[in-house]
């Protein structure tokens, strides 16, 4: 990558550069409006919390990286936390990746059901980057749909009785910025980030209005990168260092900054987290859904009994994670 490309992209998401951009009126007004809005409520995890991570490729690949979940687990030893990663590549607040054989609207309804089925007490919601491809015209529809998604995630099901207790707490996450790293050209990253800034602002607005927690990856993740490290592998997908930086932003946002040697101290936990997440992936997005659950279930639906057999395996794997977290205290 040519050096100037790196500096351009770095400029875009470092704080000092952001103020520079604002001063040169490059920054859209929505950003400024959001900055003036009441600040979001800080968030924290409590003992026994069941956390669902919901979002796009950033969340799906966190299921392989494990950095964010490891940070949250390790900073709460003995809290018996549960994490379920429901990320899906290319997804949006309309659940556009989750329609399978149906329209996205059916995928959306199914997504809400799946989240509820996990009985979460906390849902971490990370969307916005794919939606931002629609540009300025897509901003308001995105904001509205994100708000609706939050409503739907917090709407108690009739069977759950007491509404106040049943609604999970929400944490909204702004998307990490794009980076002028090969093969993404610096100019393209800059242009995308200018739009993305508006979407990040919209997420902050929703979070502020709802009083939910927020993790501001868009504004903060670059500052957490080790010197010389790239945020992404290819301009868009977080690198290992990028996930480490994201984990640090998560930790900061709930008031427990990570120590410098955190990653090296927690490799065993992270391995256990990843093992658990792989098991969970096979249970919630099993292969052959067509035959197990959908329109060819008359052929192989009998094998659907195998899928719940993953549950105790996932729970055992999660118990290992908790045990390792306790030991690392």
């Amino acid at each position: 990558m040519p050096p100037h490309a790196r500096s351009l992209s770095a400029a875009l998401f470092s704080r000092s550069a952001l103020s520079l951009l604002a001063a040169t009126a490059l920054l859209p007004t929505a950003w400024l409006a959001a900055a003036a809005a009441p600040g979001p409520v800080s968030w924290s995890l409590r003992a026994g919390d069941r956390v669902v991570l919901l979002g796009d490729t950033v969340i799906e690949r966190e299921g392989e990286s494990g950095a964010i979940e490891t940070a949250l687990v390790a900073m709460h030893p003995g809290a018996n936390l549960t994490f379920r990663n429901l990320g899906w590549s290319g997804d949006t607040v309309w659940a556009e990746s989750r329609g399978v054989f149906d329209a996205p609207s059916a995928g959306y309804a199914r997504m809400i059901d799946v989240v509820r089925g996990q009985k979460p007490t906390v849902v971490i919601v990370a969307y916005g980057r794919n939606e931002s491809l629609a540009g300025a015209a897509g901003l308001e529809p995105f904001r509205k749909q994100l708000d609706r998604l939050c409503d739907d995630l917090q709407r108690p099901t009739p069977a759950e009785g007491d509404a106040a207790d049943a609604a999970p707490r929400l944490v909204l996450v702004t998307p990490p910025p794009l980076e002028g790293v090969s093969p993404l050209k610096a100019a393209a990253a800059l242009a995308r980030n200018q739009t993305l800034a508006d979407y990040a602002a919209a997420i902050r607005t929703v979070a502020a209005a709802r009083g939910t927690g927020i993790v501001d990856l868009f504004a903060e993740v670059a500052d957490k990168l080790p010197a010389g490290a790239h945020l992404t592998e290819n301009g868009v997908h977080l690198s290992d260092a990028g996930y480490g930086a994201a984990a640090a932003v998560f930790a900061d946002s709930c008031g427990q900054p990570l120590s410098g040697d955190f990653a090296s101290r927690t490799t065993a936990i992270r391995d256990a987290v990843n093992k658990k997440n792989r098991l969970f992936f096979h249970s919630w997005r099993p292969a052959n859904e067509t035959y197990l659950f959908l329109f060819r279930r008359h052929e192989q639906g009998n094998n659907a009994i195998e899928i719940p057999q993953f549950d105790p395996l996932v729970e055992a794997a999660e118990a290992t994670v908790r045990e390792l977290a306790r030991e690392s205290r």
Partner: protein
Amino acid sequence: MPSIPYLARRAARHAIAAAILWIAIAPRPASAQRALTDIPTPDPAAELAAMEVAEGYEVNLFAADPAIRKPLQINFDPSGRMWVSSSSVYPQLKPGEVPDDTVTILDDTDGDGGADVWQVFASGLHMPTAVLPGDGGCYVANATEMLHLADTDGDGRADTRRTILSGFGTEDTHHLIHTFRWGPDARLYFNQSIYIHSHVETPHGIHRLNGGGMWRFRPATLDLAVFARGWVNPWGHAIDPWGRSLVTDGAGGEGINLGFPGAAYFTAVGTPRILHGMNPGSPKLCGLEILSGAHLPDDAQGTLVTHDFRANRVCRYRLTESGSGLKSEKLPDLIRSSRVDFRPIDVKMGPDGALYIADWYNPIIQHGEVDFRDDRRDRTHGRIWRVTAKGRPLVPRVDATTLSDTKLLDRFDTQDGYARDAARRVLVERGIAEVGPELDACVAAALRAAPGTAGYHRGLERRCLELLWLRQGLDDGSNAAIDRALLSRVLTSPDPRARAAACRVVVDWADRLGRPGAGPDGSPGPIDLLAPTVDDDVAAVRLEGVRALAAVGALTETSPADATRAAALALHAVDHPRDDALDYAVWLAARELQAAWIPAVLAGTFDDGGRPGRVMYAIRAAEATQTATWMVDRWQSGVATLTDLDQLIDNIALLGDAEQQALVFAMAIDPATPQVRAATVIGQQVEAFRKRRVVPTGDLSAVQSLLSSAEPSLTAAAIDAAAAWQVEAAADALAKIAGDGDRPLPVRRATILALGSLPGDAARAALCATAADQDSPAEIVAAALSSLVTRSPADAAPLAAAWLSRSPGEGLVHEVLRAFLGARGAADRLAIALQGTALTPATARAALQDVTAAGRPEPGLEAILGSASATGGPRSMTAAQRAELLTLARDGADATRGAAIYAAAQLRCIACHRIDREGGRVGPNLTAIGAASQPDYLLESLLEPAKNVKEGYASVVVLTTDGLVVSGIPVSRSDRELVLRDALDKEIRIRLVDIDEESPGTSLMPAGLVDGLSREQLADLLCYLVSLGRTAAVEEAR
């Protein structure tokens, strides 16, 4: 006897030991469990001995288990080593099982034709359906991801694992992304099958593909795009020396398909139009390779090899140039085996000039019919077979990675496809900095030897194309990477195949060829470069030119004016003859660029080159209703010339609004209008009603006058129009035709159907009278009942009950029953009306067949017809009876007698099922059913059709807002309409806006079809089905 190399001998010993063990511990086979007892021992020597190999060729074992198990894809690297991906996890990961599938590298270091080195390159994979060596390791399909695995320390094992792309669907594990291959453009092409829904995020955006199709991908830039769409299981992809993609389908049936940018085939989602393969009526095929190289004889060069994996055959096809594409003809098989476990699925030319075949080795294929955990599934074996030409020297193996750039560039001239691909791969990976100087010199020399100069020879045309592809492969995104001179040279090549191929390069370089339409410094831009191609003498060049113009026009950086120019040029193709593929290409271009050309047409700035027919074609292709007013102005102002006036009016009839429809209708009923023209115009208006429910304004009663026309096509159109527009005033005229014994029966029946959709008492009364008229021909009564039920089930039910009691013919019973089953609430009314009505058992049985084939339960009718049919419902057989019957079918039945039963009118098998080219398409093609399915499964399907419904043949039941109930197999679905194939093999198009409710149905095959057969007849029928695709005698007789 072909030699068995060391590895194979080892495997054979292993297999024999296993076989002895198996015999010792296997339970005494129950006589009816043919499927179990027929599992062959996995002995490679026995499998080889059972192969019938074409004259002049021989086969030897290259590798087998335990070195490889369940091979899924093979690809050679430029060093000549074979990479194999294998899966024991398929079809489904077990809870607690850690996925540990592998990529293995095989090598024949001593050149004896057998692998003597095998190295597990990577493990821990999850159903790796594809592997492709490249970039210091290999690209692997890993369920939801494409991975790159690399060996950075040179120990032969992967030590880094990167996720390159993610978000691929896994809804069906034999549909996972597969068939990885490099194109000559150094892009990675890969396919996904029909049930896969993929959502892939790259730095350049989101790419979604719901359904089958082919992706085109450049790893270095992560540029990803859908290249072509459709197919069920496009498990074979070969690219000919001119860059043309050839595709086979493991569940299609049209043999060899031609893939070009934007092509859509069978099952493509969201398109109202699809293309067809070159060999309709072919078996399902897997894998594809083009034979080439000095080892193989001349008559093999350029022929295609693919696998009929269900019938255990290796097939061959020959291609010849034809129209805008190619023609394919089937040749005699290369290998046939009597062994059910020989499952050839992939095929590649090797570094020694021999052909290598991956044999998945499994008596059970697929995972729909047979349980995931069925013990008969083989999970441990697999073979690679090597096919050589007898008595011909092998090609000396060359490790391309050791050759100089010059030597590699020279290899572009060889006829050996493997050698060319290997050379190109090495050069691309060496990169522009290293290869650049040598390539520049090579290009300069090729350009100097222009046609007409002393150094020129015909081979330079392909060489120039290869050099152009290499430029494309080495493209680093800089302006310097663009080679205008070479591009122009190939675009104007004397060889049309080179000209066609160069069109795609223009698209890839469009961003750097200057503003589309005008390059920098007066040099031609991409649209200028493509302009001559659309008027080329050769249709294949026109096709690629049209597709390239559409692609350039659709780029985001292309201005509306330039996009309009691209569209205007693409439409030149309308001036020339067009076969189906070329017409599709223009049709698609008109649709893709409509946002540009429609405003230009409306503004009067569109350059049609003085040929208004181009615009008329585009308007129709894009169904551009917004041009209707513009067209009416042209018509009324007299601007339209005689040459395009008819097209113009037809377009208005198809696309106009209600008032514009009235203008057209007035013209049609004008006595001065020729009757044939009037018929065409009204036909378009009926089509407009079907698509958009638009009805001309004003008094339409004049349609009556057309009913009495002497021109049959006009009468027919008028009948349809009267029905569509609900012209109540036409009821009497229609009733008169319906009752006119001098009129042909089809006309009378069409009239009766039209009466069914007319409002008002006159039409209803006419239908009641006809349905009650015992003197009318039975066909007329049946039509009247079918028509009446759609508007008034209460009137129709008692009349139908009375009619059924008179034992009408079986065919008419089916017609009327289907009509009742197709009208909401009518089936229940009929059940009530039939209370106390005496039916003959034959009538009841015929009616019951329709009820069970409705794809949904109708308990009322099932009960009353079941008791009247005297059989008490479809025949059932105990497990012991089934076992006995299976034995009888195997040992004491006759396939020839079975064939006669199959064809008999009583069963009507042929109405729904196709064998070769004969028969309907409602049910699965049975051409090779015996090869694909076990006898016990076939018997069960005959007795209980709803129990196992074949992939792609599950019906849906649609309730329309008009109160109709339609059951059928989905054929296609676009953003506007759903096309179903009903039980009569008729395509029913339903607008999505008319669908009230849609639910999954069951089988469309009637239960109880075989009830009338004796035990022996059923055994004969089963014997015949089992023989299909398996028995040479039966096959040759076809």
